[in-house]
């Protein structure tokens, strides 16, 4: 039985044994494979983080003709305020006009917690359908309905015949998983179950041998999409970007592609396996097109599936030469500088390779979680015998502050909303991820190099901050082992 036959997808913990807790070195991870870490390790002190609802809404909010109903307390949906900025800019870049997200909340109250929230949810669906007539209505469940036992799937199935909007249930009960990448599975799950069959009566043409699905779960803005489209077109391919900003009504066209192309296994493996099993579409998923070598590997992988080996070598040679010449004047500033990286696992590792290509030395790396997909990547970085600190953490900036105080890197690259620790310590800091800027492909290398160059040339903003702003940790904390709050379950606290 396929995962997609069930109402809810599995968590990443159960499907991939993913974990979020480790403190050690790259060699420690590279040798041992995924069981090295980490089983049962937990933190006896933790800081808040995000849950799967956030990245899930990142995809859902971008869909045109779609309203989003969050079934939960009134606060759960307000993350949409930040995503609304991305959707506005993304809509303007793709369709020439900014668009606000249309979202609703059932705003569950105390009485609903006691009596159950199904009644309120049903009323909300009916009212929204009547008053707003969205073509698609995504119904997102959160912690409260998960605990009090609202059966959203049965409810949606029962009332579907009376609702004009096509309803898409998505499960985001935050307490069920610590791996927020489960969000991608949750959204893909509903797409796989509801949107891949062509509507009745629509003439379906056969598979298109030049068409590839380029998967984007919102981590790439339009500039990044354009760069990858440019490269794939140079191979003579047509590109279907999926699923962000894609019309849900046309998503079934993804089943006509000759190949699905991922830029990150953390994002897409769940869905791409489904597309292969159900529709026979092969996929390439092994590399992330960040950095010169990785972009070439990514392109070669795609080409190998489609018999484009000669073409791809021509593209790679031309692009690499062009890029290298452009990078030349920027590189002297980078030589021997020590960099610290923090991001999602695949992105952090790919950027490690990229920074080495630019002449940096890697002094430490933090990744949000760890699973089997990254094993080869750790080995890539450990291959030359160099060792550095690796910390797996769902943010946890207290560990980061301690590490940065010890390692004193020359430059820091971190995720959106997670750069302020390094910046307030005076370290030149560049975002490793921010929708709307260039990160991937050859253009990504060049633009990132320029951002690093700018930041290193004048880090005054951060330096002045550091002279005047304190982080909120005790001095004693910096003297303790940064991983002293990591322990195996059942062990007493030190």
């Amino acid at each position, binding site marked *: 039985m396929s995962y997609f036959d069930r109402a809810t997808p599995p968590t990443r913990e159960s499907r991939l044994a993913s974990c979020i807790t480790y403190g050690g070195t790259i060699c420690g991870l590279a040798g041992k494979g995924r069981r090295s870490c980490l089983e049962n390790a937990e933190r006896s*002190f933790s800081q*808040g983080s995000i849950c799967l609802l956030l990245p899930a809404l990142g995809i859902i909010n971008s869909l045109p003709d779609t309203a989003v109903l969050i079934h939960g307390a009134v606060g759960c949906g307000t993350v949409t305020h930040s995503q609304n900025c991305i959707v506005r800019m993304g809509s303007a870049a793709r369709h020439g006009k900014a668009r606000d997200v249309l979202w609703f909340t059932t705003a569950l109250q105390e009485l609903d917690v006691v009596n159950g929230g199904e009644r309120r949810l049903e009323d909300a669906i009916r009212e929204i359908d009547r008053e707003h007539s969205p073509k698609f209505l995504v119904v997102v469940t959160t912690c409260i309905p998960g605990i009090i036992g609202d059966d959203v799937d049965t409810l949606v199935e029962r009332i579907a015949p009376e609702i004009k909007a096509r309803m898409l249930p998505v499960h985001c009960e935050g307490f069920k998983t610590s791996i927020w990448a489960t969000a991608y599975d949750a959204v893909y799950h509903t797409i796989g179950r509801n949107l891949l069959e062509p509507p009745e009566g629509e003439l379906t043409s056969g598979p298109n041998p030049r068409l590839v699905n380029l998967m984007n779960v919102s981590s790439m803005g339009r500039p990044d999409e354009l760069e990858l489209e440019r490269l794939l077109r140079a191979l003579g391919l047509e590109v279907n970007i999926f699923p962000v900003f894609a019309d849900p009504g046309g998503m079934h066209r993804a089943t006509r592609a000759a190949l699905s192309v991922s830029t990150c296994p953390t994002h897409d493996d769940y869905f791409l396996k489904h597309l292969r099993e159900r529709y026979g579409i092969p996929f390439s998923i092994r590399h992330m097109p960040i950095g010169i070598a990785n972009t070439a590997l990514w392109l070669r992988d795609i080409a190998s599936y489609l018999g484009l080996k000669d073409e791809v070598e021509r593209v790679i040679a031309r692009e690499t030469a062009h890029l290298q010449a452009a990078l030349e004047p920027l590189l002297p500033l980078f030589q021997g500088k020590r960099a610290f990286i923090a991001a999602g696992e695949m992105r952090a590792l790919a950027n490690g390779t990229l920074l080495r290509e630019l002449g940096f030395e890697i002094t430490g790396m933090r990744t949000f979680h760890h699973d089997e997909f990254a094993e080869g990547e750790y080995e890539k970085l450990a291959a030359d015998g160099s060792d550095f600190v690796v910390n797996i953490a769902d943010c946890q900036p207290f560990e980061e502050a301690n590490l940065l105080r010890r390692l004193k890197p020359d430059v820091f690259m971190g995720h959106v909303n997670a750069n*302020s620790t390094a910046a307030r310590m005076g370290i030149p800091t560049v975002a490793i991820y921010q929708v709307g800027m260039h990160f991937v492909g050859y253009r990504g290398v060049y633009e990132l190099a320029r951002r690093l160059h700018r930041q290193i040339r004048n880090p005054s903003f951060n330096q002045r901050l550091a002279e005047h702003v304190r982080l909120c940790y005790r001095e004693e904390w910096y003297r303790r082992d940064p991983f002293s709050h990591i322990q195996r379950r059942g062990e007493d606290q030190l």
Partner: protein
Amino acid sequence: MSSYIERPRFSCALCGALMAAAALPDTIPIVHSVAGCVGNVAWTQQGGAALQVGGPCGCLGIPGTNLREREVVFGGLDRLREQIANTVVVMEGRLFIVLTGCVSEVIGDDVDSVVRSYKWAGMDIITARTGGFRGNSYRGYEELLKTLFRDYVRTAKRKSSRLVNLWGVVPGMDVFWRGNLEAMRRLLESMRLEVNTFFTGEDSLETLACAAKAALNVVVSPLYGVEAAEIFTEIHGTTYLVAPFPIGPTATGRFLHMVAEALHIGNEDVDRVIDRESERYYRYLSPLTDPWIDLDLQRYALIIGDANYAFALADFVADDLGWLPEQVFVTDPVPEDQREDILGRRAGLRPEPEHRLVFETDTSAIRHRLDPRWFPVEDGNDYRESFSPAFVIGSSMDRELAESLRAGHLSVGFPVANRAVLDRSYVGYSGGLRLVEDLVGAMVAAR
């Protein structure tokens, strides 16, 4: 009540309490909930709080128990104990505030008993029930204040006749909160009063703990913090004044008189301040006169805001700028039976006809409640009493509406995605000037 809210302009109780607790000096909040609550607040701020993310303890730095399925089944109190014990080791703080989220409350964790045991052991630690299902961010702010007044403010034997506490400006929900609180403090200090505002850089935990010495509590809101003021009176005996949020010279003059009257201060002190500040206000405003007239900067206005801003903005543009606020939307969920109270607490000089004040939480519904004749028509070859020239003062979610009315727009109320606010304030005399700058700036941006 409707079964949903469409794009509410507030978050949950935990979010409101957390933004306020993180704004207190030397204070470390501990969130007893799932991991995502803290991140949700950080991203809510990133998109809605005029580019201010996190407080001193910042954003994703806030300690949390990060509950999982195991705790949902077996209870989260062991995890909470462990977290509190280790928070003291890692985080630099003197007051610790445990805030509950939906999950710890739904599973029935007895947080009070755990917090009490640490308190008995000598720790400065308090807790507030702020599960998201208990209400919105304003409710969370109110719950936090109640906890502070009940469990942190010490009883005082004597009152200090010139000391006042001031609250009602909600950190984060009012994106100008830092500037606004500082401006209120300056205003009252200019009347030779001592002021506690709790959340600014000039406040401290010591002055908060001694707040019961105040002769008067001033709540600058018809709604937020009034319940906490009642609790304060009950416990510490200090009476309170509910005063409208003052923007510009007319409202601020009235505000200062209200405070003076409540404190039995003679009019001389007040009039001296009002004369000086009004003189300054008009000295700065006066050179705008020619452009104001020549460019015809009088506007019909559509005001959309929370209970503080909606009335304050409407009164300012009507009483001081001579604009016509044809419709005013209050976007808080105010129960019907409380609406009259709130309306009674506004200060405008001009009694507004009832129909111009509307309570509406849903963003699209605001458009549907406007007179359809206000929207421009292409075939305009007719005499028409249209809603033009117009200006919408609202949030960044009202840009599409303003565009369809062909009106100017300024984001003032949450969410404010398209402005950066640091120490800006719209309160008082200087605040009125800032607001004029920003309104006119938006109108002439294409010049």
